[in-house]
């Protein structure tokens, strides 16, 4: 029987490749990159990313974007108790209770708010992950000890713990970040441990053991990277929670002591005293918080789907 000529063979190979289930562009893409690819095609994820990006840009270029200095009390002499100048020439959103430009404060506020979000999340992530890795990698009594500790922390009301942390560390912006981070720690620790336990029993981890790969490399080279995706998702979501949490702490008087430095949470909390006369002072920062939180959450939720092993094919 005559087999196909070489030319035809190639043609068929080509067709066969095209018929394969993977989109051509995906060839050789790692899971992370193909997840990013999927995200790029997801309108919801894009919406989230655009929101986050816009605010990042605003934060980065605040000095260029803000029409005025955010701390100068331009209109202080016009302020009377019960009267705060509204929007006017040169102050598109009006002034705040000390005669500062609200718009500029909102723009500069993105810096501090995002910073709080990022730093506290990273902090919570690092500590939580360290605990999680300890528990997940060693198992046994280390695991028990770490997890009991985490349980203990979990059973303390979160806000209460944040309050005591701020009180303990004195009030400054770092204490605020730490206070927010502390609440995140048990979440990350449990998440990572759970996911590492699953991955540790997976075939590829056993395979690595069978290959004689060193334990440290199995943990850090295989198990850990594969356990990270829920943690990454949680971290994205935490960015949003951290900003909201900052507002709550500011409201309780535990925020950044340099309150001239604009930050949405503190602005919102501070505006509570003027709700009856200028609700805009509260509405704008609240809106900013909600929109940014929305952005991070949308991104996080979609990331969860994109990283879900169910979608790996």
């Amino acid at each position: 029987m005559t087999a196909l000529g070489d030319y035809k063979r190639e043609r068929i190979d080509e067709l066969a490749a095209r018929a394969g289930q993977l989109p051509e562009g995906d060839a050789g893409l790692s899971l992370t990159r193909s997840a990013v690819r999927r995200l790029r095609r997801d309108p919801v994820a894009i919406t989230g990313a655009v929101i986050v990006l816009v605010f990042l840009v605003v934060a980065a270029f605040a000095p260029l974007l803000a029409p005025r200095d955010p701390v100068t009390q331009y209109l202080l002499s016009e302020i009377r108790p019960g009267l705060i100048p509204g929007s006017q020439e040169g102050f598109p959103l009006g002034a705040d209770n000390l005669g500062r430009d609200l718009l500029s404060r909102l723009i500069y506020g993105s810096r501090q708010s995002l910073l709080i979000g990022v730093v506290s999340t990273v902090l919570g992530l690092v500590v939580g992950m360290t605990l999680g890795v300890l528990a997940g990698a060693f198992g046994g009594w280390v695991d028990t000890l770490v997890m009991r500790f985490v349980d203990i922390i979990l059973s303390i009301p979160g806000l209460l713990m944040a309050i005591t942390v701020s009180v303990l560390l004195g009030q400054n912006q770092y204490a605020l970040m730490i206070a927010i981070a502390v609440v995140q720690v048990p979440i990350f620790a449990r998440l990572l441990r759970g996911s590492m336990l699953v991955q540790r029993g997976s075939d590829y981890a056993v395979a690595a053991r069978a290959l004689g790969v060193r334990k440290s490399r199995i943990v850090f080279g295989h198990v850990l990277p594969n356990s990270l995706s829920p943690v990454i998702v949680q971290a994205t979501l935490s960015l949003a929670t951290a900003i909201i949490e900052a507002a709550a702490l500011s409201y309780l008087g535990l925020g950044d002591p340099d309150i001239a430095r604009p930050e949405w949470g503190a602005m919102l909390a501070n505006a509570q005293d003027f709700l009856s006369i200028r609700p805009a002072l509260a509405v704008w920062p609240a809106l900013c918080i909600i929109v940014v939180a929305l952005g991070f959450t949308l991104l996080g939720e979609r990331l969860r789907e994109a990283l879900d092993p169910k979608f790996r094919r």
Partner: protein
Amino acid sequence: SSDRDSGEGDGEGDAAQSGGTLVFGAAGDPAMFDPAFASDGETFRIARQIHEGLLTNEPGTTELVPALAEDWEVSEDGLEYTFNLREDVQFHDGTDFNAEAVCFNFDRWHNFTGLAQSPSATYYYQAVFGGFADSENPGIYEGCEATDENTAVVSFNQVTSKIPAALSLPAFSIQSPTALQEYDADNLSGSEDAITYTEYALEHPTGTGPFKFESWDRGNGEVTIVRNEDYWGEPAKLDEIIFRTIPEGNTRRQELQAGTIDGYDFVSPADYQTLEDDGFQVLVRDPFNILYLGFNGGNVEGTQANPALQDPRVRQAIAHAIDRETIVNSLLPEGSEVATNFMPPSVDGWADDVPTYEYDPERARQLLEEAGAAGTTLRFYYPTDVSRPYLPDPAAMFQVIAEDLREVGLNIEPVALQWNPDYLQAVQAGQADIHLLGWTGDYNDAYNFIGTFFAEDQNNQASAEFGAFSAPEIFAALAQADAAPDPSDRTDLYQEANRLIKEFLPAVPISHSPPALVVAENVQGLEPSPLTAEDFSTVTLQD
């Protein structure tokens, strides 16, 4: 008033007098109702309606007037007070008020033991009388004698300017000896590690006031007092008053607007206008307080004071740098004044010829330059989570002053702390370089202001509010004034003290501001008191 109340109150037949129920929003819970153990405003507010002392203040002023004592005489040496007591006065439990009862109360205070000697229980007694029968320094109280049914003679071993004004404090209310004994009022021991108040203080406070204690629903944070039908004077108009605890200012305002309460205290200055526009009555009290910016500028060896602030020129520079006019106009309610003395003008001993340190940034910069202190970094402490009558919005105050100071070339490092206890502790331990603090007078007496701040015993420690400073002239003037039996000598001495203080400048007085309470349109007859000593017995509710 609700249907329930009218249903109950009708039987009496005094419907004309029957005035319904007033609900008043308080910012915090009272501690209990035995004012001898109290020191906080919320407890006092209620105690004032239930209890009366020998003396009181003219409604709406700080003027001392008789209450349970019809009048009083002071001996030449100022050591013996003879009180002529009102007749026909009965305690709520039906027992008679008389000289015996007065002396019983004085002796009770003097003979407190154990936990009752804790400063948290008997702050005012200790502040005014100095000590207890069994303590090392037994204080100024000598004894009390009931010379007849209606005459009580109280004697002291030392003259003080605090007496008799302090006797108008609720802490020195005269309570029923029978009830005090029956309910074991002094036995605070309860448990070894916290004060358990007695049944008397919690459930059976028995005074002579226009209202009687009815109930305290702790869970729901409400205290109910009802009219004392057998009051010796003009009986109260209202049937009953309920004090409801609502910690948040916004919540209080909204509850008033929703009509579920009839009034509240600690109105945010920002809300005055809105509330008035909505038809509520904002009752502004005359200012009887002082806000100052304190310096840690002590001048003795070993003080922990800030070196830059030890230079008087730097302190003066700061005083010149602060635009107090704008602060008073923009941040404080209408009726506020720029302060020159560390006490309001209405207090005897206020001096009008003190150095004032007008707003002059140029001068400030120059002084700093001279002192070589330009660019100095100061840790500026301010409290969070609090609103005081003299400091309605600490954060705003802090920001404005900080800007002013930055303007003249000082560096400000903000430190924010929770008011109680962190802030108070830190500030009084002299941890702050500069800080905001103030005081509301308890009674009309200069020593209650400047003595509290600048007397020697407050300032001779290494870590004191203003740093350990030695100003023998000031200390002497204050001590002399306090001990002077003659009121006019006293006034001169206090004025002198005020001048000396302003020259030395351990702090900058900033403002006196009028706190306010607000009531609904139909609430009449509530006279705002500079001492926050409002009397609710004159209040009526209009339909």
